[in-house]
């Protein structure tokens, strides 16, 4: 893949939606262990609405897809995931605007999205939040010169798995302190689905 196109963006969202719907119960059970137990329901509702919004629209640019995704997630996801994922997609939209989305542009977009999420949630890497997975993916993009599906997948996967051993210091799980150790972070897992889907689109798309 040289250029990430509108079709790729739509496919990315469709795959993410599938994974989120398939794992709705799993995400909820993860969130019941250390949060308020609504992550699966919220993400499933949010991405269902995203698919309704973007299906059948003749988009001219990837940035426009990202913007619709952002606005939908912001208004339809009730939990913290709404403003956080909404901010991430809004940053992607702003970075992608006005030019072709090559690997350098995508890399910059992920970096901007990560910074946006950090600022919105006042969180940094290592606090058992989705920031951990986005940081790993941003690093993978920076170190890789072309679109590398496998590199992105592995970076996201290991950061998601590592979230298990971290003590939460941000988000609802932070109230639990040490008891948050030994549980996967639900936001890291949903971010993993997002990047697993992106990796699949990159691997399939010539």
């Amino acid at each position, binding site marked *: 893949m040289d250029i990430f196109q509108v079709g790729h963006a739509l496919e990315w969202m469709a795959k993410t939606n599938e994974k989120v719907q398939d794992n709705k119960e799993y995400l909820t059970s993860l969130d019941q262990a250390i949060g*308020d137990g*609504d992550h699966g329901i919220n993400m499933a509702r949010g991405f269902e609405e995203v698919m309704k919004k973007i299906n059948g629209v003749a988009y001219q640019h990837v940035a426009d897809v990202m913007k619709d995704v952002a606005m939908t997630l912001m*208004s339809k996801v009730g*939990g*913290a995931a709404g*403003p*956080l994922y909404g901010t991430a997609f809004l940053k992607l939209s702003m970075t992608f605007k006005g030019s072709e989305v090559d690997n350098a542009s995508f890399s910059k977009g992920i970096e901007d999205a990560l910074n946006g999420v950090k600022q919105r949630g006042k969180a940094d890497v290592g606090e058992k939040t989705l920031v951990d997975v986005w940081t790993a993916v941003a690093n993978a993009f920076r170190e890789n010169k072309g679109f590398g599906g496998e590199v992105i997948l592995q970076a996201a996967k290991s950061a998601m798995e590592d979230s298990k051993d971290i003590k939460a210091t941000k988000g609802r799980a932070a109230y639990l302190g040490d008891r948050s150790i030994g549980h996967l972070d639900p936001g890291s897992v949903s971010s993993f689905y997002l990047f697993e889907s992106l990796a699949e689109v990159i691997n399939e798309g010539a």
Partner: protein
Amino acid sequence: MSYVGIVLISHSPKVVEGIEDIIRQVIKDVPIELAGGTDEDEIGTSIEKIQTAIDKAYSDKGVLLMYDLGSAKMNAEMAVEMSDMENIKIAEAPLLEGSYVAAVESGMGKSLEELVAALEKGF
């Protein structure tokens, strides 16, 4: 006389309704608007509800936003960023006690800055 408006933001519609009842027992004239729960009135917060509440509570003296838990603040910040109006502030104080103090101060004709200062001092 115009007063600083107050927007109560909570994950639960019932929480803000209850707080409004408590404040209204004492403070009658200060604009208080509620943004509790999601668009479907489930547990969570809604940027749209917050935006609507800001518009309704707004006076030339501004609006103060009070919130309960983490994601409520994130949605409050986004609503402020998207708003065309200036003179909106987000308070860092407990939702119930802070809103009560803010309403009392606003009712005395204090400015938005004075409300924020009273909350910073009080909690």
